[in-house]
């Protein structure tokens, strides 16, 4: 069974629902404070998937994810890089994405720091549901073909809730490198409700692109695809009734409670894809 580590630290606040999402997908989940790794009570290498959940680590007082990234860099850098190099899976959601970018694990290129997630163009924290398109086919979390788990919808919805989510590259030329490498994982789309099967590109327009990210980027992965960072919160939409507009198409009277309880939301496949990928890999090795 895929062993998933949901890594907490002070101010992380999406650990519970992230753990729930992985459990629902069949993962064996441990929620640990980073201190238990630092003190050597637990070891990162024991796990198959590392989830860095959202929140306001250390209040984000020095910029989103800064203190948390600094903590991981100074105390766990080697273990983290080994984990990534072995092809194990890492997902950073919202504050976790900001941490991965601060650490340079995303986009994961050698050399200078090139990327950052900066303050939204709107200048404020905003919570809204957005539409997304999966742009990559090399990331096990975004498995549209359903090779390992529930197929990921090509178009999905999820809530965003952040103030610093605008993906920014120091040098615009690097965008091409990102695109050519297939590292653009998710983009914002111009949704118009549930009945729109293929929403158009957001084209930078607010609020479909809620933060002003270049090329509507809402998530990126590393070159190998085993590390994914994204601003939206798929863990908040693993069940249909968590969605924004299910009352416009509600469960029928004939649907059983069990059926209702087990109907997935758009975000579920992201966790199931990862768990399935690990399980399949273990089968192959065996």
């Amino acid at each position: 069974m895929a062993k998933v580590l949901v890594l907490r630290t002070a101010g992380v606040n999406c650990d519970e629902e992230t753990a729930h999402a992985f459990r629902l997908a069949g993962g064996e989940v441990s929620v640990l404070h980073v201190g238990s790794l630092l003190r050597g009570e637990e070891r990162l290498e024991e796990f198959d998937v590392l989830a860095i959940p959202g929140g306001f680590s250390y209040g984000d007082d020095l910029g989103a994810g800064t203190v948390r990234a600094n903590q991981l860099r100074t105390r766990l850098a080697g273990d983290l890089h080994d984990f990534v190099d072995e092809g194990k899976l890492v997902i950073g959601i919202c504050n976790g994405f900001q941490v991965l970018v601060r650490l340079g694990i995303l986009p994961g290129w050698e050399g200078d720091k090139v990327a950052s997630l900066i303050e939204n163009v709107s200048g404020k924290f905003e919570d809204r549901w957005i539409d997304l398109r999966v742009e990559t086919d090399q990331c096990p979390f975004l498995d549209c073909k359903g090779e390992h788990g529930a197929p990921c919808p090509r178009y999905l919805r999820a809530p965003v809730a952040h103030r610093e989510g605008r993906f920014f590259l120091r040098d615009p030329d690097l965008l091409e490198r990102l695109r050519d490498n297939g590292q653009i994982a998710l983009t914002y789309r111009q949704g118009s409700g549930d009945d729109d099967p293929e929403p158009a590109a957001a084209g930078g327009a607010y609020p479909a692109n809620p933060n002003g990210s270049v090329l509507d980027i809402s998530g990126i992965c590393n070159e190998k695809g085993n590390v994914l960072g994204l601003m939206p919160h798929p863990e908040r939409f693993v069940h249909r009734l968590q969605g924004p507009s299910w009352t416009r198409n509600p469960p029928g009277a004939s649907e059983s409670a069990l059926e209702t309880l087990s109907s997935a939301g758009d975000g579920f496949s992201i966790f199931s894809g990862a768990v399935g990928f690990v399980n399949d890999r273990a089968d192959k090795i065996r």
Partner: protein
Amino acid sequence: MTSLRTWEVEVHWREACGDDPRAVELRGQLADWLDCRDCGIRVSSLFYLRGEALEEEQVSLAIEHLLSDPVTQECELRDLGDGEKLSDPMAGGDGGHVATVRKKTGVMEPVEESLLKGLDDLGMGGLMVRLALRVRLSLSMTAEQRELVGEKVLSNPAIEDVFWDQEEIPSPFSAAAPYEFSLGKVELSGVDDDGLVALSLEGQLSLNLDEMCTIRDHFESLGRPATDIELETIAQTWSEHCCHKTLPARIEHEGPDGEKFVYENLLKETIARATEELMAKEETPFCLSVFKDNAGVVAFDDEYGISFKVETHNHPSAIEPYGGAGTGIGGVLRDTLGTGLGAKPIVNTDVFCFGPPDLAMEELPAGALHPLRVLRGVVSGVRDYGNRMGIPTASGALYFDDRYIGNPLVYCGSVGLIPRSMVEKVVNPGDRVVALGGRTGRDGIHGATFSSVELTEESETVSSGAVQIGNAITEKKFLDVLIKARDRGLYRSVTDCGAGGFSSAVGEMGEDTGARVDLEKVPLKYEGLSYWEIWISEAQERMVFAVEPEKYAEFEALAESEGVECTDIGEFTGNGKLELFYEGNQVCDLGMKFLHGGRPPASLTSVFRKPEAEEPGDGCDLDAGALLRAILASPNVASKEWVIRQYDHEVQGRSIIKPLQGKDADGPGDGVVFTPRYDSLRGIAVGCGMNPCYGDIDPYRMAVSAVDEAIRNIVACGGNPARTAILDNFCWGNTDRPETLGSLVEAARGCYDAAMALGTPFVSGKDSLNNEFRTGDGTLSIPPSLLISSLAMVEDISCSVTMDLKAPGNCLLLVGATLAELGGSHYAKFSGGGGDVPHLPPEAFQIHQAMHEAILQRLVRSCHDLSEGGLAVAVAEMSFSGGVGARLRLADVPRPGGEDGLDDPGLLFSESNCRYLVEVSEENKDAFLSIFAGLPAASIGQTCEGETLDVVGQDGAEVVLSESLEGLRSSWKEPLIFDAV
């Protein structure tokens, strides 16, 4: 020999990265005060780092990894040597002006704590750090303009200092002098009335003469002077804020028709009495803990209970809106954590009352902050605290009235999940007194007594010590510890340090046992605090636990593993005394009995006279459509989306019915539904009711209307009215005036009658009196402001409904009777006069039950309660939120009063209680109506294709209103957007 070295790091935006977001925001704020269109604005953060032989290399490391984002920011590094003299802010500048903004000494700065943590990870433990903000403006300003901008835009003088240009900036590292113990004694024996009043005033004790006399007599009987800390402890414990003197007082009341009532204890005989009588009728237990703990608790399922508490933080928010509101939410979350053995917060609520945001500057009374500034600050405060804690802020309301200008109201609520086995707690003699969380500083001294008196134009300066600044992360950290320690059974009791600090927390917990505390053991933020300051400081983010001695080591280890400070500061003794020591010297020796039972009972008189009845007006010049647009655009009705979106209402993944609903997720939901457990289809619904416009005319009916609205809110989205609990929050003016107290008594009577009629118990409540603002010209008192919050069980979340219309071709049914009771309505504001305030109809209970039954049977596609603006506003909101047109026939509106003088606009805008507008498919219409047999309910129209709302008048022919959905929507959506950019 020491060689402290200080560095100054200035971090600013890299120009090549485009516009600096901070400068853009500041430009927007400055524009209210001066013409800065073409002026250059540069904002930078200043960090001062000081340490033993601190090298440039180390500081550079900190810059790279902590102080700046190398992708978007640039830095300048300056060696300040011994740090006694700071760099010249004007150096290298291009003229213009430079402002340096810094927190006053002793005011909490959360960023410093995070920075110290980061430096520690970099191997730079033990440094001293300070922060400041520097703003460079390339324009010429007069001294007056500088002062204005400094005070109104760049800083809040209550907590920050601004230094302009070459003004000397004192070293940020000025160390406080260490405290030297000396016991303060106050001889009370023989002091006369005037002397006692003076003592109370000078010591900011806010004790009245009666109370001072009781205290004098007590110490005379002991034959010794009081100590200062004993007086402080009594003042905190007896403050209106901590123990509520007024509602439980003996009150002789004269009602509107001259009838006399005598209440020995108003609270017990109205609000608590309703709960008692309803609990006696419960077949399965619902109320698990009422009126005795930090929050009320009701049953959720066999395993869990739900706690609910709403607090106010009005006076702190008037002076420092951001800090006041943030610590308001922080405080109510600690109430949840301190309920039983600790509930886990799962939903926040917020209700605000402000002065008009477009108030002209010249109308702003001296000493008051502008309503827009208060609004922005309060919303940011709740946002930053709630979001950082990871708790969805999802339910609330916003009201505007001129009388809230100097004294805004900030209600913060918290809903928690608690195992039913953990609702009770007990302190045993021998348990340790354990403090957990943040350190104690000089913040919030006299907050409890300060909030119990009215505000004046000097409050801003006199009471700045009462301002608290919160640090949400400290609270989030001990939340994590508390829940783990609770589940491991590591303590026996817990409560929060709120108003009155340790004095109230330890005083309350030790009421039945007694307690001994060694005050020098309390960890401090900085040196220099006296023993009594330690005892009453309201520094935020602290909890007190009663821990069995044998479990303390495990408790401490757990706290340490999460990076939370935990200190054993004393013992719950068993001798019934409150004994305080400082370095071995006894400074307090009070009997718990006197402290908690010695306050002289208050005896008050009150009177309520009905204001001259205003006859219904002659109608207004606007046609129905224009009137509808005007009401939709009025601030109490217009969209609150700007506020709502700044709160994370999805965190924790429990949100089922959202605050913003409909096709484009912008419609105004009545209530919200959350699922406390991921593995269950059971949920809770949360809503509220309030209408300050009614209180001036009829506070009794204001109260019943607020209760009814709170119930409608939760029923409309799927809550079960028979499993609903409510909370009361009374915010009133100075109740020393019999008329002001009279309106409160009337409202309390209304609370009792409504709770009994609707079968909904009150489980907790709080009041905040003396909400007045005194200026040279007189006193501005708030209108009677009763907030009722509701919490309902939802049997099956998959039956929940939203308010947006779903499809054309469905029936629109109106449930409940419409009457000629337009007093206090929005219609009355435009037409003049209005008549009676809406009453609670006798069939209210059955209507809510029937509505719930119809929703459970899945007969309802959408449902919206009728409140401000009545039927017209409800149908408009439903239509434009769903993108579905509607056509109504006023002739079919149920009106058991018959021809009662309601014309077409009256029917459209009446705010009669107990009404819902419901969308039902044609095939389900009969089934729906059969549930309402014998109750007022009728089909009054259809949903239709097309983007218009049409209403046919009572005569059955004339179209009295025809509006495009887009026009209605934009009237409603645009007024309350307050972006500075």
